[in-house]
């Protein structure tokens, strides 16, 4: 990681099998730093699988085999010296259904810090500061500053999802992976999360998997279209939607299938 790579994530000829089923076929893609990259494609095309490769969380879900290379911030993440714990600290993930832990808002935000530091090195003032900073960054501080001790699972869904994003921030991640982060939310909340993503872009590289093409168009700077485990096309978002190079991309964004 000596020279800062201009790409946050780069894969080369990435193949992945679940048992005998090949879910990813020869994926080579570059994800630019500090931007929002959308992954679109019909159900089962492998976009969530690809997302889960970027912090190697796939390996926790059972029988997974991969070949090829993934560089995150210029570092090959399959290199033997890579610690999954450090990798996941730098590459956090947000899920379809908000998944706050059934503990207080405060404890949710500092959960990552607690996991990564010795108990005796934690100072109350540092933790308080981290909570305020993270919650402010996602726009929850004003709403929740007097309710830090309420159980996170009792919040509204939108707040829960923002909290799940805030939970990653104290670890100072470089990349935030989002797996259909709005599909459990209503229109209004979706809009708020999208706004949040746009304010977070720049400081963080964001990769978002979405079913919703309009959403990809609204929030992403670059967009990749996947089909049946293959990467069909990657381009600037407006180019992909206006002048797709591949006929399959054109058919998908026209709504002829998927």
């Amino acid at each position, binding site marked *: 990681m000596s020279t800062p790579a201009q790409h946050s994530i780069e894969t080369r000829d990435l193949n992945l099998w679940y048992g005998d089923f090949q879910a990813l076929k020869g994926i080579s893609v570059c994800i630019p730093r500090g931007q929002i990259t959308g992954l679109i494609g019909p159900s089962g095309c492998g976009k969530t699988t690809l997302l889960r490769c970027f912090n190697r*969380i796939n390996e*926790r879900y059972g029988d997974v085999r991969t070949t090829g290379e993934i560089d995150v911030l210029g570092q090959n993440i399959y290199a033997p010296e890579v610690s999954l714990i450090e990798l996941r600290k730098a590459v956090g993930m947000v899920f379809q259904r908000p998944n706050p832990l*059934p503990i207080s808002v405060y404890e949710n935000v500092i959960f990552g810090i607690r*996991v990564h530091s010795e108990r005796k090195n934690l100072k109350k003032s540092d933790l308080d500061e981290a909570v305020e900073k993270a919650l402010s960054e996602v726009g929850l501080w004003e709403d929740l500053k007097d309710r830090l001790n309420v159980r996170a699972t009792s919040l509204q869904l939108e707040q829960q999802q923002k909290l799940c994003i805030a939970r*990653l921030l104290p670890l100072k991640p470089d990349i935030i992976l989002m797996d259909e982060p709005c599909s459990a939310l209503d229109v209004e909340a979706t809009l708020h999360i999208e706004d949040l993503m746009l304010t977070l872009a720049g400081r963080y590289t964001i990769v978002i998997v979405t079913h919703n093409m309009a959403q990809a168009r609204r929030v992403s700077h670059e967009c990749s279209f996947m089909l049946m485990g293959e990467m069909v096309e990657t381009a600037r978002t407006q180019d992909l939607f206006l002048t797709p190079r591949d006929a399959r991309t054109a058919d998908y964004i026209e709504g002829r299938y998927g």
Partner: protein
Amino acid sequence: MFEISAHTRRKRRAELLARGIFLSMTLLMVLPLLLILGFLIWKALPILSLDFILDNPSKGMRAGGIWSPLLGSIYLVFISLVIATPIGVLAAVYLNEYARESWFTRVVNLAVVNLAGVPSIVHALFGLGAFVLFMHIGKSILAASMTLAIMTMPVIIASTKEALASVPISFREACWNVGATRWQTIRHVVLPNSISGILTGVILQVSRAAGETAPIMFTGAVFFKAIEEGNLFAYGLFDQCMTLSMHLFTISTQVPDVPDALPYGTAVVLLGMVLLVNAVAIVLRVYLRSRKKW
């Protein structure tokens, strides 16, 4: 308009009949339980008192109380759970949280299921062979407790696994994605959210351990033994002991001229002990449940 047709009337009759059958079966199930309880208590009433609980049996088991068998049962249940719980719970954590599906886990799971189905007399023979004779522990509270532990462990593993599996996977994902290790995930998230289920499963094994006669008959229980009355530490680990279940068997079938109330009193105390523990389990469960919400 909307008048009832012959077909609808038949359907309604079938509906009433079905409901009646289900209800009566439910009552049929509850009734014997209430009858048994009522009958036992009514028969035991003349003898139930604090002295009955705190006195040793006397006059060749034809008088006195049940102190030494009661304390023996408590020892066996307690020690067997102290042995079985850590092994069972930790094994279940491994199987549910760490182990991948493989021939090894399949064999272990199969063994757990089958071990749970082994008749208790077989456990008794195993305990006799392995602990009493081979390990030279001798007939003792320790050997009997270990035998009971072997008997209850598979069920504890099964119930713990179930409790662990009921913790939503999304909680684990949340942990993994901030870089928590498996152990941190288990300690901070999985265990706190499954502890009520685990405890309930363990406590329900009290009734099994307290009720079994066969496994302890060969491994540590004796016909008669007097101990210091009122002293909770009257038994040592390597002593033999009396137990309620065995005592009940003895005075009901092996000793002539036992006054009627004596076995019934013993049965009521055994049942009361089990019900008390189960009630504690339920209260604990309700309490722990009320603290977690998702």
